[in-house]
């Protein structure tokens, strides 16, 4: 049972990891916490639904198209709505993100109402049995896809010139300007990548759950909990935080009370902020007086 719970937690945690990572990508480059990010996740899921169910596109090309569309939306969102108010108070940025999220949600509600939509299974392979452990096609697909993507993401970041430039922008935007980088363009890129990665979370979750316009809200909280656990601003921490949260939800639901699955994220946020506010990999903020 423990192994089965762990596998289920890993599969769910990979989605959280993706969402937390995408939130962190935006946060690291622009210090904006995208409170509308859950609705970007929802939009990705619905885009893939439209492409697969209504237009008959195969799942993988549909996922790529949906991610590309969300990349463009992320870039446009930053250029059109965030960049013009960057110099203003942070609360304005937060409200803009919330407003944009609700706009996306409103559009989904206008089109589909509040009905729950099923997505056809994507990875329809027979389960693999390893002793008592049942490995479903969905779990293989989700874990495999996210692992490959994480390898590519962190590989690019650590080993390529582009990755070093992205790190430079993250670590010192002014320093990046001093070496001739167009920081505004990098920020556009980060918003695009953030939106596309978040959308992939929605795309991966769509075939294993039911779609509805409000599904983003709970993923946003899971993303925040994963970020908090991993340490705000830490890319690796966001991934580990997501995976740990997914597993913790499964354990808490099975061994304590199934109702805990829904509130584990909140418990994690409160516990981490009390015990270790900087999370697992975050740096302790030092205020010099």
């Amino acid at each position: 049972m423990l192994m089965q719970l762990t596998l289920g937690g890993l599969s769910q945690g990979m989605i959280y990891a993706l969402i937390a990572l995408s939130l962190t990508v935006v946060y690291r480059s622009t210090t904006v916490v995208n409170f509308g990010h859950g609705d970007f996740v929802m939009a990705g899921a619905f885009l893939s639904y439209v492409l697969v169910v209504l237009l008959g596109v195969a799942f993988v090309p549909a996922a790529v198209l949906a991610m590309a569309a969300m990349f463009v939306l992320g870039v446009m969102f930053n250029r059109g709505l965030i960049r013009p108010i960057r110099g203003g108070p942070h609360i304005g940025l937060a409200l803009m993100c919330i407003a944009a999220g609700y706009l996306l949600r409103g559009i989904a509600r206008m089109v589909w109402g509040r009905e729950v939509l099923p997505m056809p299974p994507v990875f329809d392979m027979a389960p693999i049995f390893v002793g008592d452990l049942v490995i479903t096609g969905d779990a293989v697909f989700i874990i495999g896809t996210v692992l490959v993507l994480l390898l590519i993401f962190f590989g690019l970041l650590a080993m390529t010139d582009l990755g070093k430039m992205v790190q430079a922008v993250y670590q010192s935007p002014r320093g990046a300007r001093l070496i001739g980088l167009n920081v505004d363009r990098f920020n556009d890129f980060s918003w695009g990548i953030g939106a596309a990665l978040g959308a992939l979370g929605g795309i991966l979750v769509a075939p294993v759950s039911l779609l509805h316009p409000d599904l983003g809200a709970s993923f946003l909280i899971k993303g925040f909990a994963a970020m908090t656990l991993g340490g705000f601003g830490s890319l690796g921490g966001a991934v580990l935080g997501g995976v740990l949260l997914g597993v913790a939800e499964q354990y808490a639901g099975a061994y304590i009370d199934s109702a805990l699955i829904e509130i584990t994220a909140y418990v994690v946020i409160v516990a981490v902020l009390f015990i270790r506010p900087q999370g697992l990999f975050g740096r302790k903020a030092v205020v010099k007086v």
Partner: protein
Amino acid sequence: MPEPLLKIRDLHVGYGKKPILRGASYDVHPGECLTLLGANGSGKSTSLNAVCGFVTPTSGSVMLDGIETAGLPPHKIFAHGIAQVSQARDLFPDLSVEDNLRLGAMRRGGKQQAQTLSDIYERFPRLKERRRQATRTLSGGEQQMVAIGRALMSRPRLLLLDEPSGGLSPQFCEEIAQIIDRLKSEGVTLLMVEQNLNLAFRAADRFIVLRDGQVVDGGDVRAMAGDHDAIVRNIYL
């Protein structure tokens, strides 16, 4: 006298409604080191920030070799050959020394980049020893070397130095002066803001004094040798 590399004319810069530079005009000639002197708030750093695009002038002109650069964003001004070593250094703390240096030349070709990197290591052997270390683990002086090295990696036509001696030991100030001497001998043009008058007069060829955003004095550093008191009075009184 050759044509100035940098011509600043009637430059006005303000933060919000507060004017900082109020019609400053001066030239920087090729191969020289010009130092800007002045009390806090006189507009020295603002002047550098206006030259490299971090603040947008409200009016006036900044011409680099005949090209108007006032109002351009920093990355475009950098592409014209102006690099700055800022007061805060603005390094990438978690990246290695070598990554910091290489990033300085990211807009140039790979071969040229490698050649310049070996030049920088020759100039700063200590950086070569520490090339794999994260920059945040270096001493202040070593970080200043990285900041200067990173700026030089782009082979700038004009190098701006904002308080290069800030927070450094007197020994390192002398090292900075030697670095500036060598840069000048290689034909690098420098525009420097420096509060340490000993370093300013040791390293610069000419000086100008800014007060309330305007140029109120200036001249050849050698002509002022031994009469620093007059300049200090001009700056602060």
